[in-house]
């Protein structure tokens, strides 16, 4: 498989503390890549650097074989970012939110209208397109958050904890949609604290701690780092064994 995204010695410090430390990860085209780590491990900072929200102190991000920072104009259209925060406006209707974010990628006119319909249909909000986002439930807002990031048909989708604080039905729906997007050709980077989610959808997983990747592989490969019998241990137990049980108060 071709590499779609690669970080080379990615480093970021805040107030003298190294948050991401010479990070080297490689994501293959067509995979769902899970990024796990305790609070303060550097996952969100890594995501922000990959998405060009935060400038790294050192290192580069290669996206589609090119330096992302130097080819932002061309490559940003190929990336879809679903942040942990609900990046939607409550006082806009569902379709207006999708219109706003999809239009940022140069889509306009009839094509934009079609993309809005398609995105809302995809997340099951077509019937509520004219409702204000502030009146939506938590799960609906999460789905609208996704609709706002997929309208421009990105090649790489980055989900930063997309299932926080929602009911099991909405969570299941979102996970199904992520798998569907992947089947349709999108590569996915997925971060979450829910180990069962990561285990269920990710083809490869990296565990981060203190700004570094300390283990990576498939779910079974990670389990084998701890025990031989992969059926006898959960991913969460592996995670706790590798990262330790000490509380992370960042």
């Amino acid at each position, binding site marked *: 498989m071709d590499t779609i995204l690669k970080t080379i010695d990615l480093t970021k410090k805040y107030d003298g503390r190294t948050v991401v430390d010479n990070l080297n990860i490689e994501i293959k085209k067509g995979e769902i890549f899970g990024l796990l780590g305790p609070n303060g491990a550097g996952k969100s900072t890594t995501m922000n650097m990959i998405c060009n*929200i935060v400038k790294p102190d050192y290192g580069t991000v290669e996206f589609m074989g090119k330096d992302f920072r130097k080819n932002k104009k061309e490559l940003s259209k190929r990336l879809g970012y679903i942040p942990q925060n609900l990046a939607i406006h409550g*006082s806009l209707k569902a379709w207006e939110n999708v219109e706003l974010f999809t239009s940022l990628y140069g889509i306009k006119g009839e094509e934009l209208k079609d993309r809005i319909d398609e995105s809302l249909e995809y997340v099951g909000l077509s019937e509520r397109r004219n409702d204000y986002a502030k009146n939506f439930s938590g799960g609906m807002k999460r789905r609208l958050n996704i609709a706002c990031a997929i309208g421009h048909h990105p090649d790489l989708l980055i989900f930063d904890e997309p299932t926080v604080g929602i009911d099991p039905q909405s969570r299941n729906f979102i996970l199904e949609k992520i798998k569907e997007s992947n089947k349709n050709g999108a590569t996915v980077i997925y971060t979450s604290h829910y180990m069962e989610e990561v285990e269920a959808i990710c083809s490869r997983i990296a565990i981060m701690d203190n700004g570094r990747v300390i283990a990576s592989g498939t779910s079974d490969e990670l389990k084998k780092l701890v025990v031989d019998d992969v059926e006898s241990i959960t991913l969460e137990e592996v995670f706790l064994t590798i990262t330790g049980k000490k509380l992370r108060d960042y």
Partner: protein
Amino acid sequence: MIRYLIKNNFKIMMRSGVNILLYIVCPVLVSAVLISAFSSLMENYKPDEEFMAKYGAIEANFEDQVNDNQTNFADQTNADQSEDADQANGMTSSFNISAINIEHPYFVPAIDSTDYYGIIEVVYFGWCAIVCISGLLSSEKKNRINDKLYVSNLSVTQIYLARLIPLSITCALGVSIAAVIGMVFMGVHWGNLVLSAIVVILMIFAASAFEMMLYEITNSMLVTIIVSFAIVWIWGFFGGSFETYMFSPHSMTLKNIDPIYHGNRALVELSCMGHSDYVLSSVIYSVLMIVVCSIVAVFAGNVRRRKGA
């Protein structure tokens, strides 16, 4: 690319009840209160309908002199008129009048409290533009919407314009409605409507740019509102937003560096005279503010973006 962003930001601002209250209801209410409170004070500024002018006579040859302030009665007809006027005022004119100079003082036509406060308060609320966009900026900050704007490769300048343009339009629409209400229900006269509209709209753009610049520098809506309101209040204090600039004892230097003074004076004079020398200075002041504040705002935004804040 930012057309839809401008459109949706505009919708967000237009849907805010606070904006309707601040830019339509408040100017009308405050105008009504001040018009009523200062009506007797402003009456004193009106000239008497009939007034007596005194003149002096000087010894001179018959000269044909006309300048800005003086008219010489240089022929017999005018001399006769002045003699008649003398007698009518009970004065005896025993000397031989060869020339009489009558001064024509420059009178600014009077403005009453209805026109003054009906105009000034609408403008003052236009200077409080930042409140109009506070809901949008708070939502952007709380939901980290800027991150998504950055991911889409929008530049800081584009994001700034996508805020400034709808902010200024929304604010201008609000105060325009307030102005129309004032005209229809309180009888406020704006005089030259076209020039007045240009002055007001440019001032609102200037106010928006100035306050957006403060926001970009402070990155805090609360601090921006406090600082903006304090500065606008000071400008309003010296510029005639509370006490009329005609009666205020403040120095002309303070007034001349005050953008609100230039705007207020231009609008008041347009109302009562139909023209004003202050239109040009107000327009120049506003355009300068828009350009300088926008440059500083974009610079501050770029610095913050580079830091990844």
